[in-house]
């Protein structure tokens, strides 16, 4: 178990109870109450969307797009099949929150999707689950069966005329499928290669039909918002950053794990919750939002609050909420080498700037790390970055460039030392 502080998604979840994921226990802690109320009172879909808008909920998958607003992008007056897709392809290095949601509270995701279906008129949904957590894919299928048996899913939900079918789909080892249009291709039984946008999935999505895609944590937040109110959710966080958010803390801390805390909490407090630095070592750097987010040095991190605006202002991003903590023993060249290898390995190969560019980035960082760097390499890295960022079909290209830029901005001296002395500054 790796959840140490509970917010709204894990509210009242008792991790020590066996089968705390099951429907009985979810109902005992207030689960499916929002659905029952909305169906019984026939609350208008527009009113549901308004409540989600009022909550200030922003997508938890990385881009932070306002959820209520996204739901209004479906074509107005469209009659015909619409789809709902949940993104549990959690593969952004450092992120392990959606896995714990599926492990301990999968019905919050299911109820969130049913409520979203009510609000958007989608009648079929899929949850795309990372292949590496196959046991949780199986458990999610069992949870779907529970919800169906209880009358919350399927035809004529709770005796009404509202119907929604939900299925689980698994990935099988491709980071790119976390990107929403690659994910749709993957559900269609193809290679996970991103689509050109526009059109966005809300207009042309799964099987060419209007489709809403949200992250697991985003959907899991919906029941709480509709059970309480959008305003209460908003009030838990900060303006423009409503609610609590799961932060996955990994690296050199005493207690790596998930911490669900109000947006706007100081990083220093989060570090304390995570037990502080392992072995009493000194903090050197933090990657605040998953491996694609630019690194921040300790002094900036220690003055940071964990919300969308503050992290952006500091030159990084909140991303998926994955906080990678590094102590003074870490060589930044080596750290970047591993990340650059990842993007090179996971580029889907469809567009040239990304396919070729990620290879260049990796090979140059690799040679610097191995004492074969050249004086012009840092300029070369910057210029290759400029030739990738903003020029690719999807954001994987940018995701590969941002860590390079962050490292060169804050730890340039380490790279220069490596090139000049053919060895590491750190040891």
């Amino acid at each position: 178990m790796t959840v140490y502080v509970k917010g709204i998604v894990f509210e009242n979840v008792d991790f020590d109870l066996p089968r705390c994921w099951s429907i009985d226990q979810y109902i005992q802690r207030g689960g499916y109450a929002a659905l029952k109320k909305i169906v019984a009172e026939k609350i208008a879909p527009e009113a549901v969307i308004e409540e989600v808008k009022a909550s200030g909920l922003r997508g938890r998958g990385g881009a932070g797009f306002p959820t209520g607003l996204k739901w209004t992008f479906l074509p107005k007056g469209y009659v015909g099949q619409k789809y709902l897709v949940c993104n549990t392809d959690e593969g952004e290095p450092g992120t392990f929150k959606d896995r714990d949601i599926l492990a301990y509270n999968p019905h919050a995701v299911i109820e969130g999707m049913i409520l979203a279906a009510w609000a958007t008129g989608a009648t079929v949904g899929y949850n795309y689950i990372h292949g590496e957590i196959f046991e949780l894919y199986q458990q999610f299928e069992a949870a779907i069966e529970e919800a169906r048996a209880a009358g919350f899913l399927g035809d004529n939900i709770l005796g009404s005329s509202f119907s929604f079918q939900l299925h689980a789909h698994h990935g099988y080892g491709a980071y790119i499928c976390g990107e929403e249009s690659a994910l749709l291709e993957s559900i269609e039984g193809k290679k996970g290669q991103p689509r050109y946008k526009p059109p966005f999935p809300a207009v042309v999505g799964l099987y060419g039909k209007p489709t809403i895609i949200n992250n697991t944590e985003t959907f899991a937040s919906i029941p709480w918002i509709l059970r309480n109110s959008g305003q209460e959710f908003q009030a838990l966080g900060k303006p423009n950053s409503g609610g609590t958010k799961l932060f996955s803390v990994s690296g050199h801390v005493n207690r790596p794990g998930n911490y669900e805390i109000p947006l706007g909490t100081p990083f220093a407090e989060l570090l304390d919750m995570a037990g502080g630095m392992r072995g009493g070592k000194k903090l050197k750097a933090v990657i605040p939002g998953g491996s694609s987010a630019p690194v921040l040095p300790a002094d900036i991190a220690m003055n940071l609050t964990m919300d969308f605006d503050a992290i952006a202002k500091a030159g990084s991003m909140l991303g998926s909420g994955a906080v990678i903590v590094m102590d003074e023993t870490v060589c930044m060249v080596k750290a970047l080498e591993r990340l650059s290898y990842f993007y090179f390995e996971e580029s889907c190969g469809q567009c040239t700037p990304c396919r070729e560019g990620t290879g260049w980035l990796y090979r140059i960082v690799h040679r610097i790390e191995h004492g074969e760097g050249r004086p012009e390499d840092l300029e070369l890295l910057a210029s290759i970055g400029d030739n990738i960022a903003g020029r690719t079909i999807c954001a994987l290209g940018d995701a590969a460039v941002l860590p390079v830029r962050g490292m060169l901005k804050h730890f340039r001296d380490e790279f220069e030392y490596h090139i000049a002395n053919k060895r590491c500054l750190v040891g």
Partner: protein
Amino acid sequence: MPQLLSNEARALIDREVAKYPAEHKRSAVMGALRIAQTEHRWLSEELVAEVADYLQMAPVAVYEVASFYNMYDLKPVGRYKLTVCTNLPCALSGGVTAAEYLKQKLGIGFGETTADGKFTLVEGECMGACGSAPVMLVNNHKMCASMTPDEIDKKLGELE
């Protein structure tokens, strides 16, 4: 041609097919390949062709999917495929140490299989479990957390 997929496997594939609109049967290909691989350990050309036939797809379209996703094996693997995550968050908490320990203990490198055909070692990317590092997958589906050398010894001992 002899039938490679058992009737049980076919029944499982039917369950996958039922999840998607009738005209989009190929959506079931990822599940079908996983079911086929679980039964036969790896995906031979004949097996891929049989999956294609079963889903009424062109073999090349199925092969394209099987070769795109890292967890499908298009070459024989050992009885136990061990995938260890070495990405940065895991590396900060012993991921690389675990991988090096396995290499030394099994006497093989990444992508190799022991001479007795028992173990294949694979370098993995983030499995979304970095808080439990080091992380190792056994045969794609069983996740093992906190794989220190002692735990690795214990785990290997359990695998017959």
